[in-house]
Every structure is written in structure tokens, then in C-alpha cells.
């Protein structure tokens, strides 16, 4: 077996055409970035959410605990709602 000097991760000569460098650049930028957003088709851009939660995530660190701000908000709202349900007066005698 002769020494095979192929560069293992260069473009492969032969039957398959090289992927376009532009595509490579776009793809590597897309996936190399921290924004793992899905691409909506351009037609559907009108239906994009007004509050875009696809940016960089925010996290709260407290000792070994690491919680996302989003989860913290959800848990916080749950506690607030639970306490409110306990404290708020329930109307009496209403035939709901």
C-alpha cells in the first residue's frame, strides 16, 4: 500500500463537485454562531413573533444552581399565582 498523501479534510477531487465556498461560509457562520434560530421561509416572516425569544439565553448562577431566566420567571409566576390563590378572597354566594 503506497503512502496516500490526501489531505483528509480538503475538497475531494473526483466525481463529486466541491461544495461552494459561499455555502460553506454561510453554513459555518450559521451554525458556528450561538444563535441557533430556525429559518422561517421569507413568506412567513410576517408571522414572526413580536417578542423574539431566540436570542442568547440568559442564565442566573447561584452556587451549583444554574437556572435560565425564562424558567425562573415561570417558576416565580407559579409561586405568585399559588400564593395569590391562597390569599385572594373567594366571592361568597355567587352562583357561578
Amino acid at each position, binding site marked *: 500500500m503506497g503512502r496516500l498523501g490526501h489531505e483528509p479534510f480538503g475538497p475531494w477531487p473526483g466525481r463529486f463537485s466541491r461544495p461552494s465556498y459561499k455555502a460553506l461560509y454561510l453554513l459555518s457562520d450559521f451554525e458556528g454562531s450561538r444563535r441557533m434560530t430556525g429559518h422561517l*421561509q421569507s413568506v*412567513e416572516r*410576517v*408571522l414572526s413573533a413580536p417578542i423574539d425569544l431566540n436570542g442568547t439565553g440568559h442564565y442566573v448562577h447561584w452556587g451549583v444552581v444554574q437556572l435560565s431566566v425564562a424558567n425562573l420567571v415561570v417558576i416565580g*409566576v407559579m409561586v405568585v399565582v399559588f400564593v395569590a390563590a391562597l390569599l385572594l378572597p*373567594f366571592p361568597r354566594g355567587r352562583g357561578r
Partner: protein
Amino acid sequence: MMSEAGGGWTGAVRRRAERALPPAKLLPDTQPAYMASWIYVFGVLTVAALIVVLVTGGVLALKGPAWWHVSGTGKYVNSLHLWSVELFMFFMVVHLWGKFFMAAWRGRRALTWITGAVCFFTSIGTAFTGYLVQQNFDSQWIAGQAKDGLNSVGIGAFFNVLDFGQMLMWHIVLLPFVLSLLAVWHILLVRLRGIVPPIDAVPDPADGPTREAAQ
């Protein structure tokens, strides 16, 4: 005229059901006066959220699992499904907290608590399979991670989270069916036993309607 006795298996089942849950007990239009707290609405909110989850899931099923990636309407329906699930888990956990602090298992209501807890775990499993069948990066990562936990206890050999087809059918057929049955059972138990009285409650002999005690 339905036969009072006899009627075979059908008659027996009907009489048993009517004895356990006569219509006035199945759908009462009164409730004990001690139910005077907003904490009591979280059970019905959970049920309502479950229905929205099932309906939005049904709409997603109309066009198949890949629809929401290629359609703005599909994306919105997927968002409906996601947020109804968040609300469902939200309401269910608040309901759980309330029922715990009420010790709602008292008075032969242990099975109500147990069916509720099984609903909770079944819901977690259903949500888990839901994440697996999104067919996006999340699904890939969650599958790759979850397989380790499941494999370590032998379950992964039979429940293959990397198998989209299997996970989809668990998510849209098996688990919703089981969860719905459990939820119905749980609700019927609530109707059967009635709402648990307050801790250390002692009824005034002069109070209450004079009808034979519920089972």
C-alpha cells in the same frame, strides 16, 4: 322498560354505575360551602389546558410532523401546542401543591391522589416524547442525552428514543390515550368521594341535607 334486576352483564354494569354515580352526584349543581378558595379552580384549569393540548395536537396531526417547519400557520399551531403544554404543567403543579397542603388524600381518597400523581408522571413522559418528535436540533440533542439515562436501566433497549417513528406513535397514540383514561378516572374518583372536608372539620349534626351518606 329497563329490568330492575337481570338484564345480564349490561344490566349489572348499568346498575353498578348508577349506584356509584347517580346523575346528581356525577354533575351536582351544589358544592360544600367550605370550598371557598381560588385554589380550587386549578383542577378544572388543568383539565381545560389538557383539552387545548389535545386539540392543538390534533391540528398538528392533520398535516403531519413536518408541517410546522415549512408553514407560518403550522408554526403558530405548534406554538399553541407548546404554550398550552406550559400552561397545563403550570396549572397541574399548582393543583398538586394545593392538594398536598389540603392533605386531600384523607377519607378514602388515597386513590385520587395516586391517580393524580400517575397523571403527573405520565404527562412528563408525554411531553418528553413530544420534544423528541419536533424533528429539529432540540430533538437530536434530547434524544442523544436521554438515551443514556434510559439505557443505563435497560429501558432504552425497548424504548428507543432515537427511533422517530416509535416515539411519534407513543406521543400521539399511546401516551395521550393512557393520560386521558387516567384523567377521567381521577375526575370520577373526585365525584365519587366528594371534595375532602377541611382538616379537623366536624359537621354540625343540624347541618347538611338529610340524605343518605355517600359511600
